[in-house]
């Protein structure tokens, strides 16, 4: 059974008198364990598509089945529940709460989890486990401003993982990162995808980032114009091993003096 199944998805915005048809009938299925890269020029409808897939927005018409459940006609509050349970968001700008430790940031979705309430100790345990997956257990008490961009994005990935969602939805996850950190972050997505079978959808306009996926979907003018398997998939782990080690001054937050409490 596909994780995501959309049929003839349409989204029309009304801007005053004229209509903007952002999506003009999109139909596709995403199977569990796929790593889908969504690309397209700006205005192609890929952002609108992502908002609907992420349950942030509702389609004007069409059907969206997420995990066997039709979510296209849910109320606002129910959509919030879907976002909490089924979707793990990763954003370009990380969107971590400032002055909040990595651990508390990762825990945040658990606080809004109304299906499964848990004790503080269990929340801590799960958040620590999620930080472990992204390799940041050592920095659980660090504030975002004490972490590098790549580390912040890893905290955001841990946060996306915490409620064990059906799919991780990453919107330009490497947009604010340099090449090396981009590869690191894409490496984490690949690892989660290969080792844990987590379904990943990355929205990007960079082709080289898209090539870390297994499937490429290209949008143009509100339609899917290409949907193909990626034949020469890039492997982040191998690329990272081939890169020279980072210079010490590029790791500004590694010194013990920075580990302020």
């Amino acid at each position, binding site marked *: 059974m596909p994780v995501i199944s959309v049929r003839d998805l349409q989204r029309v915005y009304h801007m005053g008198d004229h209509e903007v048809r952002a999506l003009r009938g999109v139909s596709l299925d995403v199977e569990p364990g796929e790593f889908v890269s969504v690309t397209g020029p700006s205005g192609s409808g890929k952002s609108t598509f992502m908002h609907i897939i992420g349950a942030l927005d509702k389609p004007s018409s069409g059907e969206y089945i997420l995990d066997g459940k039709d979510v296209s006609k849910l109320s606002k509050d129910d959509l919030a529940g879907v*976002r909490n349970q089924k979707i793990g968001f990763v954003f370009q700008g990380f969107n971590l*709460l400032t002055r909040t430790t990595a651990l508390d940031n990762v825990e945040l979705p658990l606080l*809004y989890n109304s299906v499964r309430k848990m004790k503080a100790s269990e929340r801590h345990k799960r958040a620590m486990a999620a930080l472990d997956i992204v390799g940041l257990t050592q920095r659980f008490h660090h504030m975002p401003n004490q972490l590098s961009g790549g580390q912040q994005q890893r905290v955001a990935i841990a946060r996306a993982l915490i409620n064990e969602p059906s799919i991780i939805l990453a919107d330009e996850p490497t947009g604010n990162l340099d090449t090396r950190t981009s590869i690191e972050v894409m490496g984490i997505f690949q690892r989660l995808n290969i080792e844990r079978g987590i379904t990943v959808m990355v929205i990007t306009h960079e082709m080289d980032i898209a090539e870390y996926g297994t499937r490429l979907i290209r949008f143009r003018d509100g339609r899917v114009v290409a949907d193909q398997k990626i034949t020469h998939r890039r492997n982040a782990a191998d690329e990272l091993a081939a890169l020279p080690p980072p210079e010490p001054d590029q790791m500004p937050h590694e010194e013990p003096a920075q580990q302020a409490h």
Partner: protein
Amino acid sequence: MSVFMVFRIALKALGRNKLRTALTMLGMIIGVGAVITMVALGTGAQAAIKEQIKATGTNTITVMSGNFTSGAVRMGEGNSSRLMAADAQALRALPQIQWVAEGATTRQQLIAGNQNWNSQIQGTNVDWPLIKAWPLKFGQFFTEQDVQSAAKVIVLGSNVSDILYGADVDPVGQNVRVRNHVFRIVGVFTAKGASSGGQNQDDQAFVPFTTVQKKIQGIQHINNITVSAVSAESIAAATEAVKVSMRTTQALAPGEEDTFRVLSQDDIIGFATQQSSTMTDLLAGIAAVSLMVGGIGIMNIMLVSVTERTREIGLRMAIGARGRDVLMQFLVEAIVISLVGGALGILTGYLFAELAKWLNNWPAVVPLDSIFMAVGFAAFVGIFFGFYPARKAAGLDPIEALRFE
């Protein structure tokens, strides 16, 4: 989401920006603090005034001669000469009345050796020190015998004694001259301070009222009667009884105007406390304005905070916060700010009241109801001024909010 979680999230959000939280609270602290301090000082002043008036004598009722009309000319109050010793005598028979003192007053020059002093000569009787609950420093008060015989004996107020003989000198047995009469000093009162009317009660000398009538002034009437009720509770009944008795002894026909005026201590306390409570209300009103300003400050900061935290709100919504979760968070933030600010304000107000007490010897009492009022108002301010920003936050579109720069 549970209430506990809402509080947890709101408190964490407040803790994330301690300076902003503290500054917002400051408005509430100052507002509530000002109200508490003002009410405390006002209430304290009221209590002190009551205490002072009580100190002038217990359960006292004063009967004063009224205005008298000569032809069509109405004279002022106290000018009537219709108040007689017989009126006082009738009051003695009333069961609600404990002590009765006739009063005949005049102002005279007191001469002792090479010193002299112009003072109030209060003609009265032996009940006077009992009515006023006023102990003597030296000697004794004059006796019933002295009143009967219009004896030339005098009891000095402490100021008068100090001026004529020097401080802490016992002048009992010495003579003082009033007009052409030589009075023997039989006693000196302890210092009592000002009366409720502001008159210095220690600048007085007391002689039998009969002596004032016969020896000093040559009059038949008296100026006033001071009586005391048997208890504080019976003062209203006693006042009524005095009025009835007075109308009888004054032989007034029904419907005829009173020839006297009866003033109870309750009336005097009433006037004084009315004044001070008006003052308290005024001050509390001014302080309440600062509470209002504090509330608007909260709304202002919360509105700025909503704008500033748009991305945070978007993020919270993206990871599963419903509109009402965000609404509750911001509302609880506002309420926590105003309640904690209110509590600190109560503490501040209390400290300032204590400070005023200590610095200026001002009486200050923090009444319990003012605390409840302040807490209630603080909660109201939090909900009222917090609701609009909270609703604004809850109404944000997550997509727009996440895109917000």
